[in-house]
């Protein structure tokens, strides 16, 4: 839960980073596309039932870090994108506490047979 709140903050930072760091071109677009997506998915992952969307942030964070290495930009831009990307991916690996019980979660919907007694999210 706390991990995903930090991810939201990282997404908001990415949205502000082009203006703060003076990023232009592809570096700017990368931050402005990744930022809102990471922040929004982080918010959705705060809810236990939709905790599973954190996996999308693992992928997004890794992609952003890769872009941060490959896309030419001033060094603060490299640092920002790589650090925010790696942190997003690492923090999104944490499932966090799930206190509620959800009747087997989404698996109970798609599973053909009686769903295993596993909880929501994942």
């Amino acid at each position, binding site marked *: 839960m706390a991990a995903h709140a930090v991810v939201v903050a990282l997404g908001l930072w990415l949205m502000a980073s082009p203006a703060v760091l003076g990023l232009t071109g592809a570096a700017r677009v990368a931050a402005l596309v990744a930022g809102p997506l990471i922040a929004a998915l982080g918010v*959705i992952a705060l809810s*236990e039932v939709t905790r599973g969307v954190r996996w999308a942030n693992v992928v997004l964070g890794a992609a952003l870090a890769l872009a941060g290495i490959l896309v030419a930009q001033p060094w603060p831009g490299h640092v920002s994108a790589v650090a925010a990307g790696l942190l997003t991916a690492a923090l999104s690996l944490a499932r966090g506490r799930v206190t509620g019980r959800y009747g087997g979660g989404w698996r109970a919907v798609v599973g053909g047979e*009686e769903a295993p007694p596993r909880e929501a999210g994942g």
Partner: protein
Amino acid sequence: MTAEPAEPAGAPPGWSYNPSSWPQRLPLIGVALVGLGIAGYLALYQWGVFGSVFEPFFGDGSRRILHSSVSRLLPIPDAALGALGYVLDAVSGAVGGERRWRTLPWVVIVFGVAVGPLGAVSILLVILQPVAFHAWCTLCLASAVISVLMIGPAMDELLASLQYLARVRREGGSTWRAFRGGG
């Protein structure tokens, strides 16, 4: 089922709470109404009812965004579409009693479908603002935040209804009848 604690009254099987209870739904309806207020105000501005728009942070950003080519892609301004989305959220969030995850699955599914894509479109518009138009719009961002905040809390009820329909199907019942609320 395994030996799990019994669910509270009204809760779906295996749940620790009832996602259709009013304490779960009223906050979402309230937030949707706030979103409706914001989007409605922006739509009135786009229609020219107001000559200027509230923008405390980003200079002429709101004006540029709200009169951009994207905002005029559809016959009605994009904020008006957002306002309609919030109306659908609020109405589909309000219809039905505290057992509607089972008694009115189609309403719950309409609610889930209204909340999910509305949030997705909001995120898309938040990306387009700075990338395509080099501008930000405070109230558009506020509306997007509201749309995104609603997604997670709304999905539990959708999950309960989908689980119910899956259960009906597994037991050989009519999913269609259950979907319409005949279960």
